[in-house]
């Protein structure tokens, strides 16, 4: 559960694809999801495998890195909020983040981008 970055054109993809949808490249490096903006949230009440005790909050987050991802959501997230998306136990999880922390996290991501392969 990690982003893929095209080694040829730097397009960021999630979920992974075989070929890059932009340039056709077939070689990828990995990157962490990081920050994004919540697009929409839903609280699932009924569905297959959904019970009264496990009603998930799901959200779609447009990551700063590019792709829109679906993640389990902290119940306090609302559309427009900034969220930190990370891999928690093999699934994507979106958590609210304070503005100061968001600035610091964005700076950290910018720094790490100068490195080569992430993960």
């Amino acid at each position, binding site marked *: *559960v990690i982003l893929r970055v095209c080694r040829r054109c730097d397009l960021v993809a999630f*979920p992974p694809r075989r070929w890059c*949808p932009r340039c056709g490249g077939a070689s990828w490096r990995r990157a962490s999801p990081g920050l994004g903006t919540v*697009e*929409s*949230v*839903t*609280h*699932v*009440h*009924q*569905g*297959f*495998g*959904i019970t009264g005790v*496990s009603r*998930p909050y*799901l*959200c*779609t987050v447009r990551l700063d890195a590019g*792709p*829109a991802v*679906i*993640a*389990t959501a902290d119940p306090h997230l609302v*559309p427009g909020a900034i969220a930190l998306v990370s891999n928690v136990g*093999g*699934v*994507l999880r979106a958590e609210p983040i304070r503005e100061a922390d968001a600035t610091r996290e964005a700076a950290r991501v910018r720094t790490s981008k100068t490195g080569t392969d992430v993960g």
Partner: protein
Amino acid sequence: LSPSDVDGLAVGSFSLAPDRAIDVAWKLGLRLRFLMEDNHGGAAGITMIDHARRAVEAGDASVILVVAGDLLGRAEFSRLIEDFNTTTREYLTPLAYGGPNALFAMVTTRQMQSYGLGREDYGAIAVAQRAWAAGNPSAVYRTPLTLDDYLDAPLVADPLCRFDCAPLVAGADAVVVTTGNRARRPVTCLACRAFHNVDQQDGDGLQTGIAQVAGELWNAAGFGPDEADVISVYDDYPAMVLAQLADLGYAPDGDLARLARQQIGTGSLAVNTSGGQLSAGQAGVAGGLHGVVEIVRQLRGEAHGRQIAGARNGVATGYGMIPYRYGACANALVLGRSR
């Protein structure tokens, strides 16, 4: 026509496995020059019809039976949604997402924000389609639905409630594709276009591939959206009814609230006159043929109880198959009554 006239078969089903189209052919005793299978859900029906039409025009076969059907119990449907494709298996099922309702709940929220829509606007669609369903003995929901019934229904995945979601049923739809001289009261394929995976799942899901090909579609048909007397749009959810109608050109000003209330809600635009899947039910891959069958019935004057008087032209759309966030397949078919 009798079964011995059939020399082509196209089959769509999620629940046919381990059988395939050839097993259906054998069990029905059909000897065939044309055989295909397409399981691309809500788009399969129109794809199969277009392939069958081309085969008949090329002389490969003369009478092609196009059939789509499904019988999925709770356990089978649960397996289908958990294992719909490898991306779902690896990236959605571990979220315990509960099925496509949650995904279209988020699409609907985006549409509400982008177009200033409220639940009452979607309710106008559900109520209007239920009114059409009263005239369709095959619909599973036929009792009238009020806006209050719609608004008060149990929550599924907010903002979607029960009557925003097509009820799962067992069922089938079928059409015969053949040459005009063999058919009684024939209906003609005037134009068909498709565009799949138009945005690589990186958009907002509010526009389908139909938007890309609508201009070509109407050009090939020889008339515009205003001249279609009956419309079937793939209605897994009311939000997708609005999206596909807009893609076809029914909301040139982008006013989806007016489209929902003034045109669909009043019945002045004849949309999903069978009741659609929202009232007639969704039978797996048959859902992609359901709207086509309704247009054919209307153009043949066989839509008793819901007949649009003098209907001459109609358009049907197919939509669906979710790689990750929303449907990636889209197509549209314009049909006309032969004179």
